[in-house]
């Protein structure tokens, strides 16, 4: 028995797990509300009304207003776009970089693998948030910086994952068979190694999305991420932090938004992992 026994089911499980399905539904809600923010939001995004600041939740402002009188619900809805955009961009950039390097390292082996993996190790030695922090200080704070600095810390995970999967794929008989047919190495990588390495990467991606959202929120919270007037959840928590005991809604709702979104991604990812490959190390 090899793990390739039923590949299609492995790639696209019908309903692998109700848990995953629950995550998927939750996530769909989050994504939809973010995408539809301009239509759903009760107020314009960036319209401070100093005289209506810090109103508690009411019929007019379901989740209250913040310290310059902006509707919290509106900003949370738009904030979802920021968070999701960051997550997608970070994961896209790091997965493409990481998987490319990893597959090359895994298939090529030898010194190529050694060089790539040692560089990877160096990056991995920095806990993600810390390296992001150090870099974020260097660059101008903002959404693009957040994407860049998180991606810098994230790609090595995919390199490591893809390298180990690719290395095991590279020893499969079908790869040998292709080599014996004289298929050139780059083509083998693209045709056989890459597609067969993707399943664990996909699982990891869905697991990581929550982490990226938490990290970007943490960066914003430390003042190194998104900046006013961008609507971003971490920033909203940071801005409202001192108001926690007096105007709880300013902090509580953005925090909950982060929690729910990260939760949705994690549930989906964990469900997928349980269904697809339960033992793949998480981090």
């Amino acid at each position, binding site marked *: 028995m090899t793990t390739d026994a039923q590949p299609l089911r492995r790639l696209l499980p019908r309903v692998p797990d109700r848990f995953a399905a629950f995550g998927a539904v939750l996530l769909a809600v989050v994504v939809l509300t973010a995408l539809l923010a301009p239509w759903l939001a009760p107020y314009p995004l960036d319209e401070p009304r100093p005289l209506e600041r810090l109103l508690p939740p009411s019929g007019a402002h379901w989740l209250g207003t913040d310290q310059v009188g902006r509707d919290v619900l509106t900003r949370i809805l738009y904030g979802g776009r920021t968070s999701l955009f960051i997550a997608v961009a970070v994961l896209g950039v790091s997965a493409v970089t990481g998987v490319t390097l990893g597959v090359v390292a895994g298939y090529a082996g030898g010194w190529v693998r050694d060089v790539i993996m040692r560089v990877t190790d*160096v990056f991995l030695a920095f*806990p993600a948030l*810390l390296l992001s922090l150090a870099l974020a200080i260097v660059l101008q704070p903002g959404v693009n910086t957040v994407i860049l600095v998180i991606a810098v810390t994230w790609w090595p995970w995919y390199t490591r994952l893809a390298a180990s999967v690719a290395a095991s794929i590279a020893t499969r008989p079908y790869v040998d068979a292709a080599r014996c047919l004289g298929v050139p190495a780059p083509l083998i990588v693209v045709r056989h190694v890459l597609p067969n390495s993707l399943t664990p990467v996909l699982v990891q991606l869905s697991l990581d999305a929550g982490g990226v959202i938490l990290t970007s929120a943490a960066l914003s919270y430390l003042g190194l991420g998104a900046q006013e007037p961008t609507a971003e959840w971490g920033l909203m928590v940071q801005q409202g932090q001192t108001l926690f*005991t007096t105007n709880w809604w300013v902090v509580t709702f953005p925090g909950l938004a982060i929690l729910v979104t990260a*939760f949705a991604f994690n549930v989906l990812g*964990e469900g997928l992992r349980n269904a697809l490959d339960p033992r793949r*190390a*998480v*981090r």
Partner: protein
Amino acid sequence: MLRHLARRLGQALLVVAGVVVLTFAVMRLVPGDPAVAFAGPKATPEQLAEARARFGLDDPLPVQLLNYARDLVTGDWGTSLRTRQPVRDDLYLAFPASLELVGAALLIAIAAGVPLGVLAARHKTRLPDLGVRLGSMLAVSVPVFWLALALQTVFAGGLGWFPIAGEYDSSLDTTSPLTLWTNITVVDALITGNWPIFTSALWHLVLPALVVAAYPAGVIAQMTRAALIEEAGQDHARLERALGFGETSILTRFALRPALNPVLSLIALVFAYAIVNGFLVEAVFNWPGLGRYAAESIRSLDTPAIAGVTLLVALVYVLANLVVDLLQGFVDPRTRSR
């Protein structure tokens, strides 16, 4: 085994070297002049020049890198621009507090995560499993900075069950002064038998440690569960069933040990992660650890201090990985022969 150790040590050194280079690069990329940060907001040009000379900022970059590496090795981690103390001394003060917090958090995480993972695996797809899965998901999804605020406001400020902030009640310094051996308050209080400070320190630890423990506990529970279920589906579990062992017995006596291996490899990672999470928690709880130090250093753009923290955490991570690597041999004999 010895060769394996040597190889891992060599690799670790290589990684450390890379970390040093990377840290240096980041330090030098910081916009604005470190000298400005040192000399203060109203520095005169002369004061700036003096600061530049002091930090060797006028040398060419490769020379600066070499100097930096040499200084690190000789124990000179630079001078903090903000506290004006040697960074090493600052870290030496802040690190034990972080270690205390993270150590307590990890203990909580393991003590809660592993049994919960076992519980979930034992009752797979039933209510306890669902509960553990949902709970652990929530624990890894919650933004720590937010959780810290919430717990503090509710349980300390509101209900008054726990102290609001601090490492221990510092008024005890006069009534029962603590002799320092390790600089870790609980440990020192324990080994010197200083019970007032010990109880006070434990009490103060509860909330911050719980906050820091949330993520690792969730991850460990998930991992334990997944690994146990995997392990319980292996052929050997069937044999044990056929030998008459009960499910719980199979999980805890046969499956747990190999299942702990991936959990263990996680712990090094989680350890470093928890230290960094301290950045977001320590300020809220007045915890005098690395996190608060780092947060203030970042605020004042104190590059040597930031570099120092970065380097220290990376070192701890590399070290923790080494330790875990060795521990794994004990937990799962299969890895020993690799």
